[in-house]
């Protein structure tokens, strides 16, 4: 079995290396064949491992052994891992297929004189396979060192892909921003890992978890006089890492800009997989997080804030990809809220359903973008339904799943999150409950605002675009259909994934946070699984989230299709709200002025005052000048004239004699 585990990430890596290094030799066809094959094998083997359902924890090789600590590269295969592996490789495979169509004429995206477009097709495939490898290393890891490797490696690929069209200023600004903001998260993450190593002497998950009881009650004085619980510090540090990767407020600013990258990677990296790494990591570390109510409260509040306020921004966006991006932020907020409520399995469950329907939505958006000749403004679309039926229906499925329409996957996963928060009783739970509840309305509103503006209503595009409107090639539409299936059915796995014991022994929750237990208890009203499910759906139909979602759809329909004058009216009357949302609460402006600007001012100041003035000016050149001055003074004595020397000798003799005659008697 171990060989299979190694083969899964490795086959993706090999595909990537071949396509990347030998892209010009094997050509476009060779590149997509080899990477598809690689990821295909990964996906197939992941499914085998999923059904094999055995626990494995072992080292592949020792990265470094220092003293008593062994840093290994190794795998821990349990149900959480296998679920992630299947989701990652499946979505990745779909994206690989889709890319064949999407990047077909990438040459057009490059200036004439640029060699960047020469092998860009092969390069793109190499990158997405490399991403798959990195993400697999992240989820399969059995230790913090490798986790951090995967964590940063996916960040690297994300950096390369956001800036893929490197001649565009916005793209290369966005990718640097993404990397740096993620580094702020990684800063916390690495400190957390350092704390874990310091107090447990290991970076291996299993060993660390085993040694947790020893450090449970240790307190630290980081600020003198303030005793903080060590596990809280560890948990918060780790969560800061998750905030960067999973784009939680205030480290969310990079994700909307990441839409500068080609759409396939927006689907794969910035919606389905990489951004959920934080959610995965916290779930994986549940034994640590369960020890700290402080950290859980922080997670709850951060997640709830992200879920609601980022969703709000989605309402005013007009770029089709940005609407989906803000919806991703908001949904990540939902998952984070679930983590804070100790409902890790709810979070992971939503992670899975979201991966499918959000990848679907992004790829559908990409399909629209292809058809619209790279026009992304939804105000210039409309009525696309009749031109693109497959995209239309799959988008509808994705949107319904997203807003939590009954019988679609999001319905189950989102309902479970809201239920979990409702049951939670740590600090911040009330706030979080209201935020996620209101967020349901917002989600439905912006999703269907976009849906109606794109697919229904009057056709607002220019004549030329309209003439060429048609459904893109099969390689684009097939992945949409393939993703639409799990976007519907994956929700039915709520039993056993959330309300069952599927994750028992993998995800922990303490007896003080019995949220999942309570929900399971509520769910199992009878012996019959079907009856339980039916009751759950019926209950959902009568609860507020459903009605909030429906009223969101209805409002969007009324405002954007029925009476567009209302939108205009609202825009005029609530201009300040619109500005606030349109400027994303001025977070970018703040960061640019304070952090980016501040760092530059600080750097210039230190350089001018410290290095150039104090050290070089005063100390180094200063001592050189003093030496020079001293020698210039001393030099005057050595004139070279004999009579000067003779005169000074006479003076000297006179002085000595005077001293001998007059001074000596007092000695």
């Amino acid at each position, binding site marked *: 079995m171990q060989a299979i585990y190694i083969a899964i990430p490795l086959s993706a890596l090999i595909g990537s290396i071949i396509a990347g290094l030998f892209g010009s030799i094997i050509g476009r066809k060779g590149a997509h064949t080899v990477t598809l094959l690689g990821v295909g094998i990964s996906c197939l083997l992941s499914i085998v491992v999923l059904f094999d359902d055995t626990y494995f924890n072992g080292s592949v090789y020792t990265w470094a052994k220092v003293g008593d600590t062994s840093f290994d590269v190794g795998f821990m295969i349990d149900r959480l891992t296998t679920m992630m592996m299947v989701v990652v490789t499946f979505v990745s495979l779909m994206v690989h297929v889709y890319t064949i169509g999407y990047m077909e004429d990438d040459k057009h995206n490059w200036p004439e004189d640029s060699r960047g477009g020469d092998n860009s097709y092969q390069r793109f495939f190499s990158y997405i396979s490399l991403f798959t490898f990195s993400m697999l290393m992240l989820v399969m890891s059995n230790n913090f060192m490798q986790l951090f490797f995967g964590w940063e490696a996916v960040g690297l690929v994300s950096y390369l892909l956001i800036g893929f069209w490197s001649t565009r200023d916005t793209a290369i600004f966005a990718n640097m921003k993404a990397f740096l903001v993620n580094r702020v998260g990684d800063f916390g993450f690495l400190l957390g890992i350092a704390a874990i*190593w310091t107090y447990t002497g290991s970076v291996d998950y299993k060993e660390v978890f085993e040694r947790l009881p020893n450090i449970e009650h240790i307190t630290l004085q980081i600020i003198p006089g303030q005793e903080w619980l060590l596990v809280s510090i560890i948990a918060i540090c780790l969560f800061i890492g998750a905030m960067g990767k999973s784009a939680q407020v205030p480290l969310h600013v990079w994700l909307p800009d990441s839409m500068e990258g080609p759409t396939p990677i927006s689907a794969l990296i910035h919606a389905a997989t990489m951004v959920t790494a934080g959610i995965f990591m916290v779930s994986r570390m549940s034994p640590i997080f369960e020890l700290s109510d402080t950290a859980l409260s922080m997670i709850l509040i951060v997640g709830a804030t992200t879920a609601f306020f980022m969703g709000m921004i989605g309402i005013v966006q007009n770029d089709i990809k940005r609407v989906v991006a803000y919806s991703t932020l908001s949904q990540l907020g939902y998952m984070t809220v679930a983590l804070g409520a100790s409902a890790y399995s709810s979070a992971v469950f939503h992670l899975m359903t979201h991966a499918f329907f959000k990848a679907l939505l992004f790829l559908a958006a990409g399909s629209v973008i292809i058809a619209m000749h790279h026009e992304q403004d939804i105000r210039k679309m409309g009525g696309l339904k009749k031109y693109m039926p497959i995209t239309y229906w799959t988008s509808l499925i994705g949107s319904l799943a997203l807003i939590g329409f009954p019988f679609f996957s999001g319905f189950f996963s989102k309902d479970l999150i809201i239920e979990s928060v409702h049951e939670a009783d740590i600090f911040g739970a009330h706030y979080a409950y209201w935020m996620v509840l209101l967020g349901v309305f917002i989600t439905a509103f912006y999703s269907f605002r976009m849906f109606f503006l794109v697919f229904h209503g009057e056709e607002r595009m220019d004549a030329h675009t309209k003439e060429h409107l048609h459904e893109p090639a099969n390689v684009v539409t097939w992945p949409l259909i393939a993703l639409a299936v799990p976007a519907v059915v994956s929700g039915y796995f709520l039993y056993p994934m959330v309300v069952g014991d599927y994750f028992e022994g993998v995800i922990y929750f303490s007896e003080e946070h019995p949220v999942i237990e309570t929900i399971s208890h509520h769910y199992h009203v009878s012996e019959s699984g079907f009856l339980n499910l039916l009751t759950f759906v019926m209950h959902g139909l009568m609860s507020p989230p459903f009605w909030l979602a429906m009223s969101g759809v209805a409002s969007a329909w009324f405002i954007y299709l029925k009476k567009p004058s209302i939108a205009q009216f609202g825009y005029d009357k609530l201009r300040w709200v619109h500005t606030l949302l349109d400027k994303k609460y001025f977070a970018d402006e703040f960061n640019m002025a304070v952090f980016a600007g501040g760092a530059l001012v600080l750097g210039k100041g230190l350089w001018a005052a410290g290095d150039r003035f104090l050290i070089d000016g005063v100390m180094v050149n200063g001592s050189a000048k003093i030496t020079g001055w001293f020698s210039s003074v001393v030099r005057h004595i050595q004139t070279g004239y004999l009579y000067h020397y003779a005169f000074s000798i006479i003076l000297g003799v006179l002085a000595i004699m005077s001293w001998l005659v007059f001074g000596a008697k007092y000695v």
Partner: protein
Amino acid sequence: MFDGYLLSVLIWLPIIGGIVTLFSGDTLGARPVALLVSAVTFFISLLLWTGFNPEGYQMQFVEFAPWIESFKINYHLGVDGISMPLILLNTLTTVLIILAGWEVIKHKPAQYMAAFLIMEGVINGVFAAQDSILFYVFFEAMLIPMFIVIGIWGGDNRIYATIKFFLYTFFGSVFMLVSLIYMYNQAGSFAITDLQSVKLSMTAQILIFLSFLVAFGVKVPMWPVHTWLPDAHVQAPTGGSVILAAVMLKIGGYGFLRFSLPMVPDASSELAWLVIFMSLTAIVYIGFIALVQNDMKKLVAYSSIAHMGFVTLGFFVLFPIIANMGSSEGTLLGLQGGMIQMVSHGFISGAMFLCIGVLYDRMHTREITAYGGVSNRMPKFAALFVLFAMANTGLPGTSGFVGEFMVILTSFKANFWIAFLATTTLIIGAAYTLWLVKRVIFGAVTNPKVAELIDINKRETLILGILAIFVLVLGLWPEPLVHVMNDSLVHVIEQATTSKLVN
């Protein structure tokens, strides 16, 4: 092969080869001769790796011959797990420098190549010397070829830079000589092992420690005695910058491990806070300064200083840990991290300077604003440059990560705030490096001169490719290096934690 005199071969072969190169003529002979000598030296140096026994800390490949008997100064050579990898780093770097100067150096190439070969031999001598006076002689002799390299093949302001470089480093080392002579009077020997075991009073230790701190701190260089480095780098030719950053700076770190920690452990413990303060300042303060540089070489030079801060931090963080935890458990990771950071920095900074050299050879400017969109014309070069830049930011999977990771982990053990400040490199280091990449490599072509750039040729690809492989291999599997250094570093910790005070 070369049983019993391998180290001598590694010292004298390049020096003699350098002299031969000097007389082999500028037009034909110099380049092949120099390449041959450096390549042969490199392959011979591999015997050190293959023949090295990682068990135990004892010196290996030892050579001993009396030199100045009246002062008991000996020609005494040997290597342990600390110095052996550094010699390999030196021999490898020299081959790459000879290759890098192949077409570029038009002015007196024979002398240029000869200077680097002689420098190679002398630096090998520094790492192999087991007699402190022998060490001192090599330590000073090394300055001469470097002085010549910057002074002759350097930029417009090379005279200022050479004088500054020379005086700075010379200023540092004279104090060390005084300390060595003082200890000779106590120990009756100049042998490094004897100096490591002689007992000293606290006052003497403190003074000796400070003199070492000046000598090695200038070399590393540590804040605030670092300002010679950016000037030297900017004025030096590419090869000079590479050997300076990749190898010569390491002599400072090596000195701390070989001299400061074992010879004056009590003073090291007493003044560890000072070194840690200086290291953290290097990491944070210098990082911000690197951010605002307009000259690519200056930026990388400042980044070198910041990265070397991790070396000294890793070496000295062991003292606060002992003070905190009461045992030296876990401190080994810091020393390992510092050493790996030295080797890794050799690869990465060498590669960065070579990359800048590639651009400079074509554009004759190092101003960042003159560039932009290089990837459009030089995709192969851009890929390698981005790889090295990522290694410079300490991305896991590259060698730049290993040392920083280990040092950060260890420093948390000492104190939360030390780790906190050290970890800021994750953000600052990424900021200055990626901003450089953004402005030079990415973007649209704006400067018409950039539009005419031609991608790297086979020779340049080979040089950068070799370094890329080393950067990745060390990043993905540092264990072989860790293993080789392990016992020697354990021994250093033992020495550093054993008091040498006179009762």
